[in-house]
């Protein structure tokens, strides 16, 4: 669906985007995460045709979107991190205006806007002035506006910002429904718990570069392996240490009384194999656990620049070790 390669954007001396790569598959709900100033909004504005990059390529369904911006606008529905509404228009007038902006006029426009307003729960608010809508309703109106031309990709920049928990939950459900109906969605957010529950894929950006991208499960699995395995033994500590020192996937070992902290670069399956080996070596294992990974943990690790080097070098070790 969307393929971005080596995207660059420079503001003066500041590199907002520094060779960003991104792939979004058809039908996926892609979470775009990064700290403030990482380059999320710049990327989204380029994807939406509101900003020109200084280099790189953006392809949508195989079409060079930068060479043919009109194609880009046909295929993208853009929901910004603000409402962007005209307070002095009624809800149907606002929708009719944007329908006309997409070249949809007359009866077709009126039918389409009614369907969309019903879909986002504003079917009974047609005659209301936009000014009188709540924040949540305005956000849903914005979502309906972005869907007017039946876009192939819905791009949302922090859509839940400033919404109360209930409205956020309702909005999340609407997004989920849209995705279940087959719409490809790019969703930028700071709310990592929302993204974990909602998204099929995630991309983590920092300093204009994509640090990590893939399915949510893959990413959590990766960070899972970066946490130490805590092994508590009842006896035979020396035997356990001897086995661990010889193990090819063990990176480091530290001992605290009967507890062994092992930096183990293996998957869940390899963890259970290690446990079996320990038991077979006559070690009485009382505890064997690894703290589960989360998207928040991934985000914190990757965007903490001190730790970033550790994680990246670890990733390199991990890959070469396997």
């Amino acid at each position, binding site marked *: 669906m969307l393929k971005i390669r080596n995207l660059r954007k420079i503001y003066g001396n500041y590199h907002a985007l520094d060779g960003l790569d991104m792939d979004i598959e058809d039908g996926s709900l892609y979470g775009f995460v990064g700290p403030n100033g990482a380059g999320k909004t710049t990327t989204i*504005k380029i994807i*939406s*045709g*509101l*900003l*020109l990059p200084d280099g790189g390529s953006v392809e949508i369904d195989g079409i060079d979107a930068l060479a043919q*911006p*009109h194609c880009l*606008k*046909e295929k*993208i529905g*853009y929901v*910004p991190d*603000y*409402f*962007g*509404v*005209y307070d*002095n*228009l009624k809800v149907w*007038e606002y929708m009719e*205006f*944007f329908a*006309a*902006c*997409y*070249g949809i006029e007359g009866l077709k426009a009126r039918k389409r806007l009614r369907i969309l307003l019903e879909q986002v729960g504003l079917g009974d608010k047609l005659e209301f002035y936009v000014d009188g809508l709540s924040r949540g309703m305005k956000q849903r109106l914005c979502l309906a*506006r972005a869907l007017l*031309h039946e876009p192939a990709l819905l791009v949302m920049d922090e859509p839940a910002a400033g919404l109360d928990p209930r409205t956020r939950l309702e909005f999340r459900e609407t997004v989920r429904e849209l995705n279940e109906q087959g719409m490809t969605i790019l969703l930028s957010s700071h709310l990592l718990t929302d993204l974990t529950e909602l998204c099929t894929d995630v991309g983590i950006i920092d300093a204009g570069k994509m640090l990590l991208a893939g399915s949510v499960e893959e990413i959590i699995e990766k960070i899972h392996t970066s946490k130490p395995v805590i092994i508590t033994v009842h006896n035979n500590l020396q035997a356990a240490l001897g086995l661990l020192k010889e193990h090819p996937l063990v990176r480091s070992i530290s001992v605290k009384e009967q507890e062994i902290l092992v930096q183990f670069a293996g998957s869940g399956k390899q963890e259970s194999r290690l446990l079996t080996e320990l038991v077979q070596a006559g070690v009485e294992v009382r505890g064997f656990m690894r703290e589960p990974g989360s998207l928040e943990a991934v985000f914190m690790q990757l965007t903490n620049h001190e730790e970033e080097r550790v994680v990246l070098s670890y990733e390199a070790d991990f890959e070469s070790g396997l």
Partner: protein
Amino acid sequence: MKLISNPVYRREIRVSSRSFRLALVLLTFNGILALVALLNMYSMLSQVRATAEIQYDSFLDLYMFVAVLEFVMLIFIMPAITAGSISGERERQTLDLMLSTRLTPTQIVLGKLMSSLSTMVLLIVSSFPILALVFVYGGVTMRDMGLLLICYGAAALFSGSLGVFCSALFRKSTLSTVVAYGVMGMIVIGTYGINQLALLFSRMPGEAYLVTTGAGGGGGSSGGFLYLLLLNPTATFVMTMLRLAGREASRGKVTQWFGTHEEGFLSQNWVSCSVVLQIVMAVALIWMAVRAVRPGKKVR
């Protein structure tokens, strides 16, 4: 591009026609004109009763008064209406939303400009019944009216384009309004000022300097600076009014302004040349506004 199919134009017209402000402006503007016109007529009729003498000049003065008032309004209200058009969209954060659709920057700029012009046309057309009072006694031909409307059209287009350009260039409506008024002031008053200064200098002992720079025409005149007035819609309007009042032979000759100048093509076709120049300037300003609105452009 059909104007009526421009969504921005349609939305602007819908919103402005709904607003109480437009009705109030129409009422106030036409109320003042009607009051002045009726008082003027009453005074003339009283004079007729008292002296049995009809002063036809007074009707022409009434016409000129209305025409001048409308012109001043065009020149000074148009920038105010248009200077917030694009920057207002930026402030509301709706410009990006429009640019993310199939709308082109040209459609956005023209939609904004045309809706402002439509409002001005509405004001002018609504004042026609008052202007028509002059036809009771005659003295103004349809040709004169046509010429006046062309003059209005060019001035409105020019001042409106200037407002839209400033609005596209600056992020804040306040700043763009200040700049639009500043530039308009420079054009309206500045060009007169420059000519006045040039005339003063040419009459001073150090005249030789201006003569060598081409500004002094010899014998005390503003020289080549006179043609700066071609940019000034007020100068063109004054010319049109003087021609209408039959004073072209005396003060109506542009070559007699700011000293004596030689007759030439420009001075003989002053109104036409000025109107064409204003339209050209307006087109250039619209083009620059469109460029400033294009996605990715830096805004001050």
